[in-house]
């Protein structure tokens, strides 16, 4: 069990470092096990530093940088042990357009191995999805589902759409 955990951990660590550099176009990232504690009890700390910056503490990072770092951790786990599907709820909300496009590119890379369900208000993300589902409330308080094409999806978040008035 101990060997298994360490092997998996080292693999996730390697993938995380690679994916971080790929997503941020540079910088460095690492995962560390708590020192001096039995491997099966030790906590895991995430260190990451965007390109050109000296700081590696997550606390000082910006909202968008943290979101992208979390995505790198998630996909590192995915690469190590693929899961059949993945559900992401507005992970792209803090991202600017450039980073939103990077996020979508990563998703596309992984979407031949697993199914991705991505809840989003972002037109950049909607535009890249293979299929789109609309969830709305034609009657107040009751969810219904509508099939949408991309042009309609963008309208769903426009003024006048049924929803939180």
């Amino acid at each position: 069990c101990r060997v298994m955990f360490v092997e998996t951990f080292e693999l996730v660590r390697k993938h995380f470092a690679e994916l971080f550099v790929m997503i941020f176009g540079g910088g460095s990232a690492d995962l560390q096990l708590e020192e001096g504690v039995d491997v099966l009890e030790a906590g895991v700390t995430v260190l990451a530093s965007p390109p050109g910056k000296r700081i590696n503490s997550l606390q000082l990072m910006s909202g968008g940088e943290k979101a992208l770092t979390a995505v790198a951790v998630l996909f590192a786990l995915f690469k190590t042990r693929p899961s059949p599907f993945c559900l992401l709820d507005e992970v792209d909300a803090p991202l600017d357009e450039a980073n939103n496009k990077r996020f979508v590119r990563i998703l596309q890379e992984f979407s031949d191995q697993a199914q991705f369900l991505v809840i989003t208000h972002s037109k950049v993300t909607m535009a890249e999805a293979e299929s789109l589902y609309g969830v709305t409330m034609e009657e107040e308080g009751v969810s219904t589902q509508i099939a949408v094409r991309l042009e309609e999806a963008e309208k769903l978040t426009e003024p006048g759409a049924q929803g939180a008035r």
Partner: protein
Amino acid sequence: MHLKKLACAGFKSFADPLEFVFDTGMTAIVGPNGCGKSNVVDAFRWVLGERSAKGLRGKEMLDVIFKGTSKRQPLSRAEVTLTFDNSDGTLPIDFTEVEVTRRLYRSGESEYLINRKKCRLKDVLALVAGTGIGTEGYSILEQGSVDVFLHSNPAERRAVFEEAA
């Protein structure tokens, strides 16, 4: 193994029965604020064995049953069924199609079913263990949880790595 469909009835804002059929690749779920998109994520977590009402944004588990609107009466039960295509045999069970169902009645009674046969929560957890999609898994990122994913205490983060081991 891949996801085929999710059927909800009486779960949160899904007063009328609703079914999502999933393709492979990337599916975007879009719609106005407050219409039920994150309730879809809650439906996934609930049917896969989520035991904490707080994890489903409620105070008590009965909060998942449709509470009614100004025009509709509250319902007396919530039901969610998740259907997998298991033709590659990833799930340790002798069926090419696997349905997992969870029900909750206003009385507080709850049921789990696998392929329409009653079972226990333990059976559902054993079925999905190690695939990354159980409630400890890493394949669901809830809305606004990027910070939790990165900042939770190292021991909590460890649980996610164990799931991948």
